[in-house]
């Protein structure tokens, strides 16, 4: 791999692949991730997010391809990377039968942080993540949101330059999710680069950049705005009677990617090969409404357009 690669790239992967038997969990993935940004992996369950993160953290050996993380070549330099990165696993991986404080003390000792520094750092984390009242509670007896904050505290205890978060908010309610993202932006501002995986659109939209994964293949990447601007479809909303019937009609057409009902409206994605989607719709259906308009695409529209090819 290119040794004098751009210094502001924190993760680079070229043609990264990983097979489990016949299954291609990750297939020829190319990544260029900027320093000091939040980068997202967006994709449904089983698309290979965890596998990709495990390779980028040196936990799994790639079947083929090259990885450089923080200037280190993986998997050879995996041990050197350990001190500079933090990893929050998808499944809670601290000890259920230790208290919050004991868990943090354990992690601190493992990273060689002791004495007064340890106490100071742990107290800092306890207050940052609102765990002060909980420090004597067993980790196993806490709620999803509390456990997730504890896991984040543990992953950032040694102040890593790079943080991997694998579906950090899957067991967390919306309010806690919002707070959690505020914490991530704080970390980012303090200079931490973050790679986060998710299957929530709203979370993906908060990332500086993201990659949309499907079946181990990267379907698209870029900032959410770029992705929405470059969407290969028109988004049309129709307000009318008999939407169920209309939907059935529309999804028969090869030019229509999908149609989904939102209350009294039908949101239709039409391939960009169609030049005038409103004419197209009126021509192909007997719509009796003037409430038909082109709207701004959402990330979900991008996601459906990118990954829809398989469904047809």
């Amino acid at each position, binding site marked *: 791999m290119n040794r004098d690669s751009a210094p502001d790239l924190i993760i680079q992967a070229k043609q990264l692949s990983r097979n489990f038997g016949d299954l291609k969990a990750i297939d020829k993935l190319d990544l260029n991730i900027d320093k000091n940004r939040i980068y997202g992996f967006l994709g449904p369950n089983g698309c290979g997010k965890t596998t990709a993160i495990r390779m980028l953290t040196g*936990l799994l050996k790639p079947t083929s391809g090259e990885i450089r993380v923080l200037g280190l070549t993986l998997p050879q330099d995996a041990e050197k990377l350990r001190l500079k990165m933090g990893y929050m696993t998808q499944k809670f991986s601290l*000890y259920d039968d230790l208290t919050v404080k004991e868990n943090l003390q354990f992690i601190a000792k*493992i990273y060689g942080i002791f004495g007064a520094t340890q106490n100071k750092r742990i107290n800092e984390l306890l207050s940052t993540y609102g765990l002060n009242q909980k420090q004597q509670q067993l980790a196993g007896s806490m709620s999803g949101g509390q456990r997730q904050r504890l896991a984040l505290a543990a992953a950032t205890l040694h102040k890593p330059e790079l943080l991997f978060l694998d579906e950090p908010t899957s067991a967390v309610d919306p309010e806690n999710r919002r707070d959690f993202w505020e914490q991530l932006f704080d970390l980012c501002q303090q200079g931490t680069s973050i790679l986060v995986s998710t299957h929530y659109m709203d979370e993906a939209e908060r990332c500086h950049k993201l990659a949309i994964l499907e079946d181990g293949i990267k379907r698209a990447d870029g900032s959410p705005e770029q992705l929405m601007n470059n969407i290969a479809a028109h988004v049309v909303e129709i307000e009318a009677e008999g939407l169920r019937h209309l939907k059935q009609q529309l999804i028969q057409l090869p030019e229509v990617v999908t149609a989904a009902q939102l209350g009294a409206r039908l949101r239709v994605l039409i391939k960009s090969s169609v030049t005038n989607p409103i004419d197209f719709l009126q021509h192909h259906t007997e719509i009796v409404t003037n409430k038909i308009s082109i709207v701004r695409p959402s990330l979900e529209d991008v996601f459906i357009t990118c990954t829809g090819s398989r469904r047809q």
Partner: protein
Amino acid sequence: MITSLYRIQAICFKELMQLKRDKMTFAMVIMIPLVQLVLFGYAINTNVRHIPVAVVDHSQSALSRVLVQTVAATQVVTFSHHFDDIKSAQEALEQAQIRAILIIPQDLSQRVVRHASLGFALPDSSDEQTGRPIAQWLVDGSDTMVAGAIKGLRNMPLAELLSKPANRSTPTFEVTLFYNPEQRSAVNIVPGLVGIILTMTMIMFTSAAIVREREHGNMEMLITTPIRSIELMLGKIIPYIFIGLLQVAIILGLGYLVFNVPINGGLWALFCITLLFIAASLALGLVISTIATNQLQSMQMTIFVLLPSILLSGFMFPYEGMPEIAQYIAEALPATHFMRLVRGVILRDVCFTDMLPDVYWLSAFTFAGILLASFRFKKTLD
């Protein structure tokens, strides 16, 4: 180096914390030695007594009744049934109501009079009846222990039969029993039990301790930290060394108090060999933990090692009496070496140089085990 020790200490401390909260495992640490000690110490008795037997008395004389009483007085057998004919006695034998039948012939008194051990037989007598046994035992020989006990009655002295001082012949050998003169089985079993219980708990705890981390997903977090394999391994086994020593103290302490098993050798020697054996068992547990993928598998592998350790180590049956192939297998088991060492120290106070081969072997086993486990334990998920 310092950080390395610090990390080992962190793992140890964490392990102890978890153990403290895991009431079940903690109870096991104490209960296993207690229960096993009582079971093996009281229940397992290699001196067979009070075997239920029947008598078929064709003689029906005062003499035959004295004979039955004399035999009963040995306490080896208890006459639970009386039958008039051999056939019904054999039925009872078949139904396992009794283990043996004593058949007293009609001519009991003649046989007794001519019996060699009573000295009435004329030296020049060539009468074919001279030297004939006075009665017959029919024994259910399937249990060799029972059969052996009754065989032991073959040369029972008959002097009391005629209330006449025995004209006892001088025995060929004089036997003096060292180390366990009263022939109490606890004296041999309790030290051996140390080896068996340590084999069981030490292998089980360590192998489960690492496999559990993998099952609970903690391993994925641990291997992304800078901890080294060897540090993790050492940190995992050190707490269990103390637990092993605690168990040994329980077994030997109670063995001394309840079963009166003496500790003849030096406590230091005992401490050293026990430590060595604990280390060897823990190393084996670590190797198992790198092979097993869940706790059930680690348990199965523990039993795979435990059974031969019980049967072949010399704990139950003397090593010397085993076929050669079994001896080879036994030599490979740490328990066999420990059994020799611990019985040597506790019962015979052997000197250090005599123990060296076993000590070397256990040390080599421990070293190889820890090395193999650290080598096999990869800090990846592949």
